[in-house]
C-alpha cells in the first residue's frame, strides 16, 4: 500500500484512512456531510496526491496529444488547461484526464490513480510514432485541491501573486506559504478552487498552512459526494473502455473536426443508452441498482449516493435509449420513485 507525503499529517488530524487505488487516503476526518458542506459554503482542502501526473515534451508534443486525446489540445495556449479523454481504438475511453499546457512544447496530463500504469502503457505505445518524450512524474508530485467559494481569498493570504487575474483553467507558477508550487484554477467539486502541484517535501507545510488559514480538511467521501452532486463522471463508473463518450453528457469533449485514435469507431456507433440524473423520493441509490420504468428494468445506476444539499438520494444512471419515465430505482426490492434531474443536481456557479 502506498502512502502520500501527507500520511502522517492525516493521522494527526484524526482521519479515517481507506485503501483507494492502492493508496492509503483519508475517507473522512470528522464527517463526510460536514466536509461536503464546508466545500459548498466556505473552503476545504483535499490530498489528491494519488492522482497520476505525466509530462509530455517535445517538438511533436501537440501532434501526439491531438492523436491521443479527444478534445482539441490545439486550442490550449500556454498557461491554460482543458478537460479531455484518452479514447481507445474501439471508440471507448481509456481514461478521462485534465491536460495543462505548461510551455510551448510542454504539457502536463493528470490521470486517475487507478489508471496510471494502464494509461502510461497506452500512451507509450502511441508515442512511438512521434518525436515526443513521456515522463511519469506521479511519484515526485504531490497534489492538493483547495475548493470552495472562499478558496481564492484564503489562498490570496498565502501568496504574493494576484489571484484575481487568474481565470478558471489557468495554470501558473506561484509561491504558496513560501514554497514553490504550480497552481491551476481547476477542481472536481463544481466550486471555484485551485489545485496545487508540489514537491513531496513541500506538501505537508503547505497543507498545514492552508488548514491553519481556515480550510477544512476533506476526505475522499466528500470528494465523491461533491463530484456526484456536480454531475461529474468518475472513471470506471460513468466512463469505461466500453463507453462511447458521444452517448454521454460529456460528448462536448469530443472534437469531431480533428483526427484522433478511435474516432471512426466512435462515430460509427449508434447510442443504445443515455445517461440521466435521478433524485429519489426515499432511500439511497447505490452503484448497480436497477432502474425501472413501466415495471421493467431499463437501466442501472453507475454512481449513487446522498446529496447533502438536496438531502435526498441521487444517482447517475444509464437507461435504454428511448426509455421514457417515470423511472423508479429498485432499492432492496422496493421500486422507489426517481425524478429526472438536470446535471448538475444543484445550482453551481
Amino acid at each position, binding site marked *: 500500500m502506498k502512502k502520500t507525503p501527507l500520511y502522517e499529517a492525516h493521522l494527526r488530524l484524526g482521519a*479515517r484512512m481507506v485503501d483507494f487505488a492502492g493508496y492509503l487516503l483519508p475517507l473522512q476526518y470528522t464527517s*463526510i456531510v*460536514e466536509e461536503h458542506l464546508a466545500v459548498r459554503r466556505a473552503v476545504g482542502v483535499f490530498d489528491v496526491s494519488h492522482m497520476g501526473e505525466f509530462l509530455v515534451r517535445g517538438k511533436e508534443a501537440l501532434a501526439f496529444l491531438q492523436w491521443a486525446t479527444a478534445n482539441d489540445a490545439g486550442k490550449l495556449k500556454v498557461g491554460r488547461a482543458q478537460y479531455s479523454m484518452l479514447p481507445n481504438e474501439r471508440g471507448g475511453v481509456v481514461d478521462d484526464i485534465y491536460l495543462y499546457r505548461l510551455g510551448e512544447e510542454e504539457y502536463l496530463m493528470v490521470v486517475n490513480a487507478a489508471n496510471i500504469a494502464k494509461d502510461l502503457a497506452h500512451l507509450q505505445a502511441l508515442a512511438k510514432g512521434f518525436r515526443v518524450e513521456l515522463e511519469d512524474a506521479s511519484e515526485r508530485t504531490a497534489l492538493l485541491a483547495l475548493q470552495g467559494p472562499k478558496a481564492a481569498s484564503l489562498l490570496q493570504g498565502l501568496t504574493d501573486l494576484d489571484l484575481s487575474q487568474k481565470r478558471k483553467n489557468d495554470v501558473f507558477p506561484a509561491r504558496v506559504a513560501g514554497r514553490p508550487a504550480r497552481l491551476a484554477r481547476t477542481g472536481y467539486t463544481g466550486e471555484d478552487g485551485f489545485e496545487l502541484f508540489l514537491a513531496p517535501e513541500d506538501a505537508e507545510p503547505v497543507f498545514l498552512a492552508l488548514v491553519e488559514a481556515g480550510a477544512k480538511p476533506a476526505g475522499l*467521501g466528500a470528494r465523491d459526494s461533491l463530484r456526484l452532486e456536480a454531475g461529474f463522471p468518475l472513471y470506471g463508473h460513468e466512463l469505461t473502455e466500453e463507453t462511447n463518450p458521444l452517448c454521454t453528457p460529456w460528448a462536448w469533449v469530443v472534437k469531431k473536426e480533428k483526427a484522433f485514435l478511435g474516432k471512426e469507431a466512435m462515430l460509427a456507433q449508434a447510442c443504445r443508452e443515455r445517461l440521466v440524473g435521478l433524485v429519489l423520493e426515499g432511500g439511497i441509490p*447505490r452503484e448497480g441498482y436497477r432502474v425501472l420504468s413501466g415495471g421493467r428494468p431499463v437501466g442501472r445506476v453507475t454512481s449513487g449516493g446522498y446529496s447533502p444539499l438536496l438531502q435526498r438520494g441521487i444517482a447517475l444512471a444509464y437507461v435504454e435509449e428511448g426509455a421514457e419515465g417515470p423511472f423508479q430505482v429498485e432499492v432492496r426490492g422496493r421500486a422507489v420513485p426517481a425524478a429526472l434531474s438536470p446535471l448538475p443536481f444543484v445550482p453551481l456557479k
Partner: protein
Amino acid sequence: MDIPKDRFYTKTHEWALPEGDTVLVGITDYAQDALGDVVYVELPEVGRVVEKGEAVAVVESVKTASDIYAPVAGEIVEVNLALEKTPELVNQDPYGEGWIFRLKPRDMGDLDELLDAGGYQEVLESEA
C-alpha cells in the same frame, strides 16, 4: 466507546433496552461511528412479527447501507418516526433519541441470551 450498562447487546451491534413488556432497539455508539453520517433510515412496519436475527430496518450512511437485526423474536409495536426527518439522531444520540424501533418480545426471557455490556466490550476488542 460508550457502552451503557443498563441494556443488552448483540454481536451485530444492536442494543436492546427493556421497558415494561417491550424493548427499545437501536445501534451502538461503535456502530454509528463505524457507519459515519447516517442519512436515511428505512423503518419497519408497525405490527410486523419478526424472528430473532431477522433484518428489520436499514440504516444508510453516506458510504454504505447496513441491516439492523431483531435482537429477539417478537412484534414491532412502534418505530422512531423522528428518524424520517432527522436520521442524524442515530449519530448524535445512539442510545437515546436515536432509537430505531420498539419490539414486544414473544418471551422477555429471550433477552437473557443477549450480551451484557461486558460481553459486548469483548466483542469490540476481538474486532479491533
